């Protein structure tokens, strides 16, 4: 029997959630036994090569590239799990939602104190750079998300337990300490 396929993606976050995945320590050996990785920053596979069972998402959606890849994930993955505050709510990056994007860009590139002299700034417009969206969206406002794991980041135990439960088709029992955040 072929192993279940897992893919992961990093959008607008700090990579902390991926670090937390790696934080499962020696269980990473079990993981490799348990699943096969497809598109993921962990193995640097750039494109989907087969249907995926579980997609794991870190980070919110702040530009067109994020949104397109997230939609790709939705298309290729049977189950999508959003992990971490950024994916679930927009998190720290979404603090920019309080300021209109135009003002943000103007402050950063045209009027801010680090712009050397007047009229020399330019808002980056290279076609290779993704276009910023009007605000940072949580993933579930862009595609349907099946499961959410809160935390900043969710602990390695939380991620591990959730993944094992999903793979085994068992109910997920997380200790109170793993989901209590205050």
């Amino acid at each position, binding site marked *: 029997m072929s192993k279940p396929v897992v893919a992961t993606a990093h959008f607008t976050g700090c990579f902390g959630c991926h670090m937390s995945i790696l934080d499962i320590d020696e269980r990473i050996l079990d993981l490799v036994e348990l699943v096969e990785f497809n598109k993921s920053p962990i193995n640097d596979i750039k494109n989907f090569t087969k249907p995926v069972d579980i997609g794991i998402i870190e980070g919110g959606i702040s*530009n*067109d590239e994020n*949104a*397109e890849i997230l*939609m790709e994930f*939705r*298309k290729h993955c049977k189950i*999508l799990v959003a992990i971490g505050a950024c994916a679930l709510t927009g998190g720290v990056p979404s603090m920019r939602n309080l300021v*209109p*994007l*135009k003002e943000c*860009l*103007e402050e950063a590139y045209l009027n801010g104190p680090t712009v050397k002299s007047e009229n020399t700034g330019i*808002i*980056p*417009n290279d*076609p290779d750079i993704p*276009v*910023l*969206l*009007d*605000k940072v*969206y949580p993933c*579930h*406002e*862009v*595609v*349907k998300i099946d499961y959410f794991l809160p935390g900043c980041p969710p602990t390695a135990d939380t991620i591990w337990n959730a993944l094992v439960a999903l793979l085994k088709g068992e109910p997920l029992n997380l200790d109170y300490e793993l989901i209590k955040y205050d």
Partner: protein
Amino acid sequence: MTHHYREQIKNIANKYGNDRGYLMNIARDIVKELGYISEEVVADLADVLNIPMVQVRDMVSFYSFFPRKTLGKNVIRVCNAVIERMKGADEVSKAFEKALGVSFGETTKDNLFTLLHTSCIGLSDQAPGALINNVPLTNLKPTDIPQIINDIKSGKNVSDLPQSRVLLNLKKEGEVICAPMESGKAIRNALNMKPEEVIGEINKSRLRGRGGAGFPTAMKWDFCRKQKSSVRYLICNADEGEPGTFKDRVILTEYPDLVFEGMTIAGYAIGAKEGIMYLRGEYAYLLDNLEKVLAKRRHLGLLGEHICGREDFSFDIRIQLGAGAYVCGEESALIESLEGKRGAPRDRPPFPVQKGYKNEPTSVNNVETLCCAARILEKGGEWFSKIGTKDSTGTKMLSVSGDCEHPGVYEVEYGITIENLLELVGAKNTQAVQVGGASGKCVAPKDFGRRISFEDLPTGGSIMIFSKNRDLLEYMYQFVEFFVEESCGWCVPCRAGTTLLEKKLRQILDGKGTAQSLAELRRIAQTIKLMSRCGLGQTSANPVLTTIYDFADLYAERIKEEDGKLMTFDLQKAMKVGIEASGRIKEGVK
């Protein structure tokens, strides 16, 4: 800091004995003289009354009738509640915008006009309506508007306009409220009994409150009377804010004596010396006449010291105007408002009968309930108990509006079926009937055999009829909008929940909802109902909850399924600002 208007503020406050309990009245008078209540005025007023500034700001910021910015000389409030919009209020609104050259919420450059929207003003039977400088105009047509504006500009009084006509629209007179009366007879009957016996007579009638909750009136009075205290209050709830309700308007216009008679009897029964009528601000135009009736009754010895010559019974009534907040119809919010505070409901217990106005035992009764009480003392509890059904004795004043030939007020016996009612009012081709206003139930044709009564379909009086050619769910959405506006903001399930409900419903109505959105809609609605702190929140999801079950097809029609991609997310739209700001061209993006 002193300002030129400080003297004015001082004088107004003085008029009310510098009593912070009269803050509503003081604020109202200030608005009348200065036009609005600025931060400076708030500071001055707090100083004059010697209370913290936040108490003043907290109160005035709550009510829609206390503007914080300067408004134009003439303030136009166009009602855009559900029934109005069925009857063409949107076109009337546009005509106002066109005639004045400003949008809603704005003031004309010459400071002559401010244009605002308002919720139901109790004129749904003659919609579309508007209040200009608190004077009601009815049955407006878009073509009337330019002339109205010109007339006001040329100095004409609003009350002299041809549209300034409130029709009584009393379509069916019953034997309880609308029967002829002899002022003082019921009071004299009551005074011949002990207060306990008066309560006993009400008990015999099995009268239940007409304001919505249907609490047995005798029990309420008895609780109030039995509280240990030397001071008690009687409050008549004339806030009538439920969209589509206007029966109290008709009662207060046509039968004010009956209301005051009932208040006096209630005062005697519970042992109160002071009665207060809380009249919704939108009904300010009824005030003059009500005051006249009060004066007449004082003159006749039916109010004031030693009523009907009785040494041991004195009772008087004052009228307090509200300032445009629906939640103030809820009895504990009403009491807060009476005490000059923001109208946020109180925690209960203690109930108002235990600790109400000024923390003294208080009975709050609806206008119609008090009328019934007067009639019961005139004709006997026995007589009353024979009208209506077993658990709903007497008659009910219904305010009927929407798609029917004869909108207006009908006094009907409790127990009438929806079917018979529709026939009575000339409604054909009916898709649904909203019973009980925005907070009520949307009743489908399969249930038109059900009866208006506490045991089946209770209503404070609002009956709105929707014919088959109406987009029913759009009107349910407008009800939700109403609650978003009127939530007092105290508790999260109501404050945030109503907004979430509004967004989710909009998404579905726009054809962007999936099966999951529908499940979420239901879950939000149930949470609001279950977790809200007061009746406003607890009932706010009713239009959605009842239609989800009884008009499931209307929702199902709009639900789409699209392999997990959400239709609410519009990538092109989300990219627009970013592309414009950087001035770059991106393929496929307009």
